[in-house]
Each structure stands twice: as C-alpha cells, then as structure tokens.
C-alpha cells in the first residue's frame, strides 16, 4: 500500500528577494525512504525548515495525512508525528547522552509539564532510552555529557533522540555527515531498520547511502525540483550529473 503521507503544493520561500525554495510540489509516499539531494544551497534544508514549520513559507501549502497543516506552530508539527534532526548538530550540551534521549522519550509519553512529581520518576524511561543509544552505538557514553562527545558521536546522539520520539515521518538532514565509515554503515542499517513502519525523508550528500537506501530521490537545484525518480533514473540524468554528481558520481 502506498499512499501519500506528505505533500506540498507550490511551496515557496524567499529571503529578502532571494528565492531559496521555488514553488516546490513534493509528494512523499507512506512507508518509503525518500531522499532529497542537490548541490549546496539548493534549498534542501530550507525545505525541511518549511516542512517542520521552523520557517514560514512565503506561499504554498503543506498537507500531511490528507490534512492541511500550513499554519501550525513547530511543536504541533512534532505532535503530529513529523520530527527532524538538524544538519548542524544540535544536542543539549550539558545533559548526558542518556538525558538527551530521555527528554524525547518523556515527550512521547506526554509527561513534560508535570512539575509536582520527582524526576526520579523518569528513571523508568532509562532502559528505553538506553535502547536507542545502543541502536546508534553510544551505549558506552550514556553518562557522558553531550559536549564531550566527538563530532560524529554528537550526530549519532541526535539521531537517537529523533528516533526516541518514534515519529511517523522522520526528517533527517544529512544523518551521516561527519561520521566514520563504520558509523556510516551502522547508521545506514539503522535507518533501514527503523524505516520498517514509518516514512523517512532525508537529505544526504553521501551517494552511497542514498543509492543504498532510497526508494525515491528528488533532486533539487536552485530551489526547484530538477529531477525525481529512483537512483538509476536520477544518476543517469545528465543535468543531475553536471550540477551535482560530477565525474565520480557513482559511489
């Protein structure tokens, strides 16, 4: 069964006259892994920001599960089941890795606003949080403060945190950036694993990962969609090769 989980119509974003996303019609099928690739500055992250409502579109609408969600504030979007990771890693630096993940687990269980009970009550979420850490290979660092993690591990932590929300649609902005080869492999596997009953939309520059994972690929350039299709299709597209992949395109 494939139906459309997310759809945009004529989505557009201008920054002081500069068009970063230009009338994009994107449609993401439920249960697939959908990759967005494109040259730097093509508007991929901006598109993510529009989808999660971190930015307000200049014009255009977004439809999620058949429902228009255009005006909602970002936290409502997350409530609906759309969660993102950030391109430039964004963790809670002085919380331990475990606490980082637990914040998300807590959110999913809707116990954030509870200010009358002890936080010890939260320990019941620890084992679940540890599970997510183990998924990304950070179990050894559960009690390390996030600042002290190396760059690559921070990114793994961020993915674990995102996963912990168990989102219906997960947006990953360059999940493997800054990771070593083994980690890239592990994250690729992880993404495949977690994609089982959810939809994943991701931006990625690592073509190996893209080729390996994605069901559909949308190529953006200068804010607009240049090509769309599976990997074989887009990797042969001459304009894509010229604008994005270059000579060594096939990883």
């Amino acid at each position, binding site marked *: 069964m494939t139906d459309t989980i997310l759809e945009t119509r004529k989505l557009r974003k201008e920054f002081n006259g500069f068009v970063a996303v230009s009338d994009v019609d994107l449609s993401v099928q439920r249960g697939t892994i959908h990759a967005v690739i494109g040259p730097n500055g093509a508007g991929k992250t901006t598109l993510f920001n529009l989808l999660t409502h971190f930015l307000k579109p200049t014009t255009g609408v977004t439809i999620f599960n058949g429902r228009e969600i255009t005006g909602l504030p970002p*936290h409502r979007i997350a409530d609906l089941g759309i*969660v993102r990771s950030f391109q430039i890693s*964004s*963790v809670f630096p002085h919380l331990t890795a475990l606490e980082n993940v637990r914040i998300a687990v807590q959110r999913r269980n809707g116990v*954030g*606003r509870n*200010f*009358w009970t002890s*936080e010890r009550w*939260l320990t019941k979420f620890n084992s679940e949080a540890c599970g997510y850490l183990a998924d990304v290979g950070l179990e050894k660092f559960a009690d390390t403060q996030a600042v002290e993690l190396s760059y690559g591990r921070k990114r793994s932590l961020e993915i674990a945190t995102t996963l912990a929300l168990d989102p219906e649609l997960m947006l990953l902005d360059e999940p493997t950036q800054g990771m070593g080869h083994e980690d890239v492999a592990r994250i690729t596997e992880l993404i495949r694993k977690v994609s089982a009953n959810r939809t994943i939309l991701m931006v990625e520059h690592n073509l190996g990962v893209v080729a390996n994972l994605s069901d559909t690929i949308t190529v953006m350039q200068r804010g607009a969609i240049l090509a769309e299709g599976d990997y074989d299709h887009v990797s042969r597209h001459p304009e894509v090769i010229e604008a994005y992949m270059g000579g060594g395109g096939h990883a």
Partner: protein
Amino acid sequence: MSVPVQARAGRFNAVHVLVFAGALIALGALPFAVYPVFLMKAMCFAIFACAFNLLLGFSGLLSFGHAAFFGSASYLSAYALSAWGLSAELSILFATVSSAALGAVFGAIAIRRQGIYFAMITLALSQMIYFAALQADFTGGEDGIQGVTRNPVFGLIDITDNLSSYYFVAVIFVFAMFAVYRVVHSPFGQVLRAIRESESRAKSLGYHTDQYKLVVFVISAALSGLAGGTKALVVQVASLTDVTWQMSGEVVLMTLLGGMGTVFGPAVGAVLIVTLQNFLNSFGSLVTILIGAIFVVCVMLFRRGILGELQARFGRK
C-alpha cells in the same frame, strides 16, 4: 503520583535524612538564638531569591524586573492587612495570586525575547509598576504603607509577637523551598534544562517551549509574590524600596552569590546579603565598599557561588 513511596524513599540516603532533619531542628531553634524579625526578613529574601533562580538558574532567563512581583505583592498584602483587615494567610495568598497574574501578563509579553532583550523588557515592565506605585493613591507614594498590622492567621492564631509570627513564616518558607525543589527536580524541570541548553532542539522534539517558559515564569512570579507578601507582614511596612530596579538587581546578586545552579544556594546568598547589610550597618560608606569588594572577590574566586562551590568541593552532583 504513581510511584510507590518505598521506591522513592529508598533513594534518600541516610545523609539526606540527617541533613533535612537537622535543618528543620535548626529552623525551629534559631529564633531563640537570633532576633526573629531578622530571621523572618532573611527567609522572605531567601524565598524571593530561590524563586528568581527558577528562572535564572534553571531556565536561563535573566529577569531584571522581579522586584515588580516582590514589591507589588508587598503593597497588596499590606493593603489587604491594614485596609481590609484580611487574615494573614489570606492577605498573603491574595498577594501571591495577584503576582502570579501579573507574572502571566509580563511573561506573555517578555517570553518571546531572549537574553539581554528579555532582561530589558522585564526591567521596563517593572519600571511601569514602580511608576504606578509612586503615583497610585493606595500605595502612599514614597511614604509607603505604614503601620501594617499582623492580623491573626485564619482569624484565630495571634501572630503579633515575633516568635509566633516566626513560626508562621517558617512554615511558609519550608513550603516555598519544597515547591522550588519540586519544580526543579521534576520532569518539568528536566525539560526546562533542555530548553535552556537548546531551545530549537527542544522545539523540534515537540515541546512548546514558550508555554514552558511562561509556566515557570508564572511560578517564579507567584513565589516572589509569596515572599513579598510575607515581607510586608514581617516588617509591617510596604515601601518603594521593594519595587525599585535596585531590588531586582539585589536578587540577582543574592542568587549568584549563593550559587545559581543550585536549588538552595540563592537562599544562602540572600541570608548572607541580608546579614551583611544588617551587621555592617553602622559603618556608613565603608559598607558599600565592603559589599562591593565581597562581590568582586566572589565573582573572581568563588564564582559557582557559595553552595555551588561547596558542592563542587565535596563532590555532590
């Protein structure tokens, strides 16, 4: 609260229990050693500073207008006590609730701004309160509300003598400290920490961060109001002093001096500053110099604040 009591109690170790019991006993015995009015005043400021620290220390919000809550509450409870003859606890409750309401208004305006802008908006709003206090009729202008009476608690228990009012204030104090502790060490407190660390990440995880900040702002304002309302009862005066920006500054200093990352540090800082002001009182301009010097030394050498420094030394989390 679904967690079994045993499971929680089990996490209290003997040291905690001892420290806690010791503190309670000390609190009960203290008025026999130290002048109770002074102690009550110190407790009021301690509540104020701890309430303030909910914002500064645990949510990363520097409010530079907290005197508005403290001061307006002190006026309102003074007025309720002397003009309406309301009982002590109701007057204080009235002041607390009003401060919470004021906090909701201030919070709604200020909360969307960050850092220094947040500080300046709160300052500006509190200057409005100052202006109102100076101009309004019921506040008595710069003469303040004088001769506030200590009405009986529940209309029954007489608290006109210092010792009985001390125990009344001590109960409020313990309640407020517990409230602060509870808020900080709660699931909500955990989210606040996360918001302070990275607001955008918290948002993307689905937290409505503005709402969280507003809630903590209101809690902090309410507790500041509790402190101010109680203070009017204690010193039996409500005056402009409590609504000036200098008072907002003083509470920042108390908090930093005591340790802003700690729950009870601000109380220690408050007590210390009140004590300094009290005992060095007759030295004139030398006091100013001395207090200034103490701040400089603290910032340079004990910057985690007194309690923060102690915790770091003795390795508690």
